[in-house]
């Protein structure tokens, strides 16, 4: 498509009218660009059951037209696209077109449909009028042209968007609800290591942004991850040795093995680099080793670390203190990553502490031997950070009397609300605005100021005098030295550590490949889907769900893990509450299964600008939204459906494969049809007759009688308008089949406890009394309205409308299809309600007008 810049005609909307105009113009030799907003052309007609009055199969007669359109040498179909702007340019027009991202390369997709089966996200199927769900990865319908899959993604789901590490929270949830836990573990590893650790100690920003958090409470995403990790570790107690596809001959040194150093090693080893981790202590893990067992069991942390070091291209050097960066360079490391974290400098201690029985928080957490002495002692923890809270809770577990002292107010404490609450609930006393020099009665003081970046190895390097700085690529002042984690930001948290390490690894890779660091974007997630868009999709009525309560160990002060993993059944139950905010969850099941390698999440929307001589608007009609007529209960009573839904139920590609009612799948035996819903009705601002409703209702009535010969069928009407060729005969044919016609207006509908419906109606012909009739299914023959999106591209140019917002034909009587703009024509139901034969006829007129216009212009007339 990008090769084409000029067309003779642009046709907007690929329904029956748009296709007919395109084919006719194409046959005359004009080059046509047909733009369709859905993934398939065909419009409403391909979705219909049969057509009146001949009762021909609607798909059988549309498919050849669709195929002929797509196969035509002079027609280019641009599906899944919208025309954003049409402007006049000298004596032609320019059009701006946006092709939505489908995340499937149509050149590779064979339409096999395997992605649909693997996809874990259900969304409403617009091609079945929302009667049933389809998947986020879908092919519109079996007859789709082009028959290619598209993946519907409204944006990044809020949970996934907010994760600093880029873990696909939504994907993990959608996989879990399908019971695909191992797949979820693997998806997790695509984005981040340390699955078990994060599932315990992550602050879970995803849960805070979860849309359900505004309703009954967030989906327990961290607990779901916890189950994913536990289940994997249960099946695989030790990880398999891993070797990346290609080992590169480049060495990288990582100094420090906290979560940032470990994760960086993981990301770089996956890419094939030879990574060496230098660690001055005798264990990998850095500060993670200090997190008490009741929050993060050691065996879990060890398992996470093994997952990383199982890469054959990672070498670990424990008890090795790096003292010269230059030496590393000499040893052949082409890049160095500093991840030395933070440490305490005892020299900074205030004087008052010097004589007392004081221990700094980090030493306290390291020296477990000292805990025995705490019993019944008064322990003061001085500080407001998360380390202080850990110390307090450890001391409580060793039977000390603990008070937490902080020099300012509670809001100034850097520990999270939960961390503080947990410590207080376990029995620690919180003393705010306390002063160090006024502490009394303290047997031990645990002093917990924020540790400072550990820069000891910079001594003697060019960086010694200036402070360490990193740019937006995590690169320091010396280009081959990168840094990440707390050493760059000061005391923070594991999310920051892993996210900066991921970024550093990304840019180290570019750096070592001599690629300009500005040239590639580190995080190219789509924007987050907006909360009001999510609401709109659910019509503001979100399905109810249950609130999650964490499962905690009964004895509060146990040394073992407090929080417990919930059962698989519960996980699935909670995961089904997910609202699938962003559409596709990026669970990558389609990517894994697609035999053609067609799925590509780096695809983004494309903007085209084309020049055309003429435009035909054929955007069709919109259906009246029956829920606006509240008295009929559409949207509230499941067995009240609209006519388009009924046409689907009767179509060969029908959703239920039988004529049944939605509430319980029962075959209906007493059906009502109500005509003129939303037409000829001033109350809903639409006083015109929709022309086709009488006839399509008669068609559906005959088809229902054919499918359910013993059913009773009543049509409530004002009057029957059978104007076209063969239509009156069609009406009589329906009457002869035993369909009951009641002339009267339905005042309202009520539902009984069996989901049957009571119709209150005025019987005009009999006695004018108000009567009640009971039916087990009601079909609302809804009217057709203008699709006002026809006007949207016309910003500077003014496309006139009639009083019902249809595109106005300025000379209706003698110049069909001509609009208020010279060179712009209209075809089909965009200009007035029409049935299919009339739409086709009108599309012919539009094509002839457009062809005449171009020829005249070219001859200089």
């Amino acid at each position, binding site marked *: 498509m990008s090769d084409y810049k000029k067309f003779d005609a642009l046709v907007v909307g690929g329904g029956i009218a748009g296709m007919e105009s395109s084919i006719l113009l194409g046959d005359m030799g004009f080059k046509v660009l047909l733009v369709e907003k859905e993934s398939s052309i065909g419009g409403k007609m391909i979705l219909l059951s049969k057509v009146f009055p001949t009762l021909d*199969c609607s*798909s*059988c007669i549309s*498919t*050849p037209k*669709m*195929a*002929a359109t*797509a*196969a035509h040498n002079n027609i280019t179909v641009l599906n899944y696209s919208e025309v954003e702007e049409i402007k006049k340019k000298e004596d032609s027009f320019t059009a701006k077109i946006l092709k939505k991202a489908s995340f499937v390369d149509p050149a590779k997709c064979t339409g096999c*449909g395997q992605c649909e089966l693997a996809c874990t996200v259900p969304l409403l199927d617009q091609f079945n009028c929302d009667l049933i769900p389809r998947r986020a990865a879908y092919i519109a319908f*079996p*007859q*789709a*042209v082009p*028959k290619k899959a598209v993946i519907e993604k409204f944006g990044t789901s809020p949970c996934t968007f907010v994760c600093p590490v880029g873990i696909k929270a939504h994907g993990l949830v959608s996989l879990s609800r399908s019971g695909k836990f191992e797949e979820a573990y693997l998806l997790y590893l695509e984005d981040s290591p340390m699955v078990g650790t994060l599932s315990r100690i992550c602050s879970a920003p995803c849960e805070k942004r979860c849309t359900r958090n505004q309703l009954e409470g967030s989906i327990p995403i961290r607990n779901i991850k916890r189950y994913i990790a536990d289940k994997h570790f249960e099946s695989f107690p030790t990880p398999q040795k891993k070797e990346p596809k290609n080992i590169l001959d480049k060495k990288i040194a990582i100094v420090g093995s906290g979560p940032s150093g470990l994760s960086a090693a993981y990301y770089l080893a996956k890419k094939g680099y030879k990574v060496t981790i230098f660690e001055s202590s005798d264990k990998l893990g850095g500060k993670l080793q200090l997190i008490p067992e009741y929050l993060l069991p050691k065996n879990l942390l060890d398992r996470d670390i093994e997952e990383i070091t199982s890469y054959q291209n990672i070498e670990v050097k424990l008890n090795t203190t790096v003292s010269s960066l230059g030496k590393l360079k000499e040893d052949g490391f082409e890049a160095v990553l500093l991840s030395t974290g933070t440490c305490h400098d005892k020299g900074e201690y205030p004087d008052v502490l010097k004589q007392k029985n004081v221990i700094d928080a980090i030493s306290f957490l390291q020296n477990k031997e000292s805990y025995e002495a705490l019993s019944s002692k008064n322990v003061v923890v001085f500080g407001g950070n998360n380390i202080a809270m850990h110390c307090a809770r450890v001391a409580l577990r060793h039977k000390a009397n603990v008070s937490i002292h902080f020099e300012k107010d509670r809001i100034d404490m850097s520990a999270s609300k939960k961390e503080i609450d947990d410590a207080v609930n376990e029995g620690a006393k919180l003393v705010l605005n306390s002063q160090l020099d006024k502490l009394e009665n303290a047997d031990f003081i645990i002093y917990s100021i924020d540790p400072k970046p550990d820069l000891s190895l910079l001594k003697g390097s060019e960086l010694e005098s200036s402070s360490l700085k990193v740019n937006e690529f995590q690169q320091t002042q010396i280009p081959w030295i990168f840094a990440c984690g707390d050493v760059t930001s000061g005391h923070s948290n594991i999310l920051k550590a892993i996210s900066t390490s991921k970024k550093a690894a990304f840019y180290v890779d570019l750096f070592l490949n001599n690629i300009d660091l500005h040239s590639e974007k580190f995080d190219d997630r789509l924007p987050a889907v907006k909360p009001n868009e999510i609401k709109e999709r659910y019509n503001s009525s979100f399905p109810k769900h249950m609130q999650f309560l964490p499962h905690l160990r009964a004895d509060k002060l146990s040394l073992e893990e407090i929080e417990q993993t919930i059962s698989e059944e519960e996980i699935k139950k909670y995961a089904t509450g997910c609202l699938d905010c962003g559409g596709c969850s990026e669970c990558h099941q389609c990517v894994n299964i697609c035999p053609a390698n067609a799925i590509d999440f780096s695809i983004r929307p494309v903007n085209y600008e084309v020049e055309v001589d003429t435009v035909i608007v054929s955007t069709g009609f919109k259906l009246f939204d029956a829920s606006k007529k509240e008295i009929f209960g559409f949207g509230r009573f499941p067995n009240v459906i609209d006519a388009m839904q009924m046409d689907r139920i009767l179509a*060969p*590609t029908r959703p239920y*494969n039988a004529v049944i009612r939605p509430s319980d799948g029962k075959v209906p035996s007493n059906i009502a049809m109500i005509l003129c819903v939303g037409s000829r009705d001033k109350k809903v601002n639409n006083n015109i007759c929709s022309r086709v409703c009488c006839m399509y209702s008669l068609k559906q009535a005959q088809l229902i009688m054919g499918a359910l010969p013993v059913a009773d069928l009543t049509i409530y009407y004002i009057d029957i308008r059978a104007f076209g060729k063969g239509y009156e005969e069609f009406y009589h044919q329906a009457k002869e089949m035993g369909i009951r016609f009641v002339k009267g207006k339905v005042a309202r509908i009520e539902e009984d406890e069996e989901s049957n419906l009571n119709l209150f109606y005025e019987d005009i012909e009999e006695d004018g009394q108000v009567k009640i009739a009971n039916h087990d299914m009601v079909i609302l023959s809804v009217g057709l309205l203008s699709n006002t999106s026809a006007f949207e591209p016309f910003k500077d140019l003014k496309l006139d409308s009639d009083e019902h917002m249809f595109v106005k034909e300025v000379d209706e009587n003698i110049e069909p299809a001509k609009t208020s703009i010279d060179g712009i024509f209209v075809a089909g139901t965009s200009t007035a309600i029409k049935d299919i034969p009339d739409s086709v006829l009108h599309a012919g007129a539009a094509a002839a007008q457009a062809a005449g216009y171009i020829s005249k212009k070219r001859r200089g007339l």
Partner: protein
Amino acid sequence: MSNPKILVFSTNNISDPGIDLAGASHMDYPESVKIITVPCSSGISPKWILNAIKGGFDGVFVAADGTDCPYLTDCTDRTAKIVEKSQELLTTNNLDPRRIKMAAICSVCAESFASHIKKFYKALSELNN
């Protein structure tokens, strides 16, 4: 031989969706059916059919478009001629011409496809005995 193998030639835009629909609606037909998609049935060569039968298929079913072909209006007539030639070719090779069958399958002809195939399968089973 009890489970005849059937090769189906089906057209991309018209017969394929119909056959797809048979699967999507969980209709029952023999699983020994293999389908090759072609743009238009009139492009099939008698040699392919002979090759298929010689190569181990018990029958070949040509799902044609009827009058719906987006490429050619007379494709059914052309396909019929190809089928006729193929039958002759089978006869000269001492193979039973009844091993070829042709029928029009439209884009929603799922039921008709399933029933054609079932009948053909039965006929081939009898031929094999």
